């Protein structure tokens, strides 16, 4: 499995650390309430098929939102996080 890094191009999966679904990018307001925070921290759509998740490229320190398929392991692409 190879993953595109915005700085370094397509690199081996060994160079990346998986963080989780891109849900993590949508942090609720501090006072949004327990339900919203539970949903953000714990509950997941957990799709079987196309997904978008966060990976960290260890050598260069880039965060990447990777579009890939959880059933085939095919990686369609990725975009860096500013």
């Amino acid at each position, binding site marked *: 499995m190879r993953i595109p890094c915005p700085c370094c191009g397509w690199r081996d999966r060994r160079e990346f650390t998986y963080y989780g679904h891109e849900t993590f990018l949508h942090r609720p307001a501090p006072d949004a309430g327990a339900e919203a925070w539970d949903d953000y*921290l714990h509950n*997941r759509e957990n799709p*079987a098929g196309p997904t978008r998740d966060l990976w960290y490229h260890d050598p260069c320190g880039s965060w990447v939102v990777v579009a890939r398929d959880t059933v085939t392991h095919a990686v369609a692409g990725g975009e860096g996080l500013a």
Partner: protein
Amino acid sequence: MRYSGLRVLAEGLRGNRGWRPAWRKPAPRPGYDAIIIGGGGHGLATAYYLARNHGLTNVAVLEKGWLGGGNIGRNTTIVRANYFLPGNSEFYSFSLKLWEGMERELNYNVMHSQRGLINLFHSDGQRDAFARRGNMMRAQGDDAVLLDREGVRRMLPRLDYEQARFPIYGGLYHPRGGTARHDAVAWGYARAADARGVDLIENCEVTGIDIRDGRVKGVQTTRGAIWAPKVGIVVAGRSSQVAAMAGMRLPIESHVLQAFVTEGLKPALDHVVSFGMGHFYISQSDKGGLVFGGDLDFYASYAARGNLPMVEHVMEAGMTLMPMIGRAKVLRSWGGIMDMSPDGSPVIDRTGVEGLYVNCGWNYGGFKAVPASGWSMAHLMATGQPWHDAAHFRLDRFRTGRGLMDEEGTGAQHNLH
């Protein structure tokens, strides 16, 4: 048909013409008192204990493929009760007791072999942690013995005791731990549930869950609608998809965990052994193959197969612990779909829908839990109340933060288990 040694002998003399299929293949009826979605180990055990403990025999198990085709047939077959935290400790202790009576109970040879489990430690700190775990296991009523280096060497002579980087300091020995023939557990529960009148319906995929006025009414399937006032979701790695049919989002992320088996060897390893410095565990099957595994691949996946980096990591850990395995050829590797929960502990609970129950979040440890999970899920579905040894497996513990069971102590977050 009752199985026995005498029966094997008699059938052998009569040309084995008297054997019958171990369970029926019924067509789904229009309705049942309870439906279990998922014909794996946990689902079949739930159906069996609904019939056995609660007299509920008008029950169907709906399986989209074939019985026992998921994780029950894809694990490394380890059975143990060495958990540390209250909530887990009593549950797995109860489960091991059910394992010890399972073959008699089901009249089925599951080849349960209590060959002992040894968790190795490699530093003073790890020794202290394992001593504490062992004390907790003994306080729970289970068995644990702290072995020193020589004690381990006597039992496991083929490990590498010379290497300096990860020296073996000793091990926590759990004599009642061991292995079982994984498929036979599914088949044994299936046969015993069928004998009590449960309908096991294969090739029947659930496509929708009917809910009216906050109550479950039944399910839609590829073989038609089936009504039932009680439905249990027991589908492991596919929990999120089935729960979504009821409008729920679960605290589950599905990951791939790989396992490996070598060609058959002469007896070389009498126990189940885990390496404390690389997350590697190994045992030898009755056919002689070394069965081993390691960590998750650590990304969400439904592929039921892994990638090469984790293969490499597992092989490295195996070679570090036990260099002799480098001479064995790996025959097969495979992956299972693990329903990972944020704190690494499972859920057996009611849902927001009356009559709908969920059993999920077994992470990479569901096999040993099969009997107690089925028992507890059946109790919950039949009485509406949690079984006392499974009362901590609540779905709301993530929202409230109360009663999290994080055995690894890394935090209740998805990417940490």
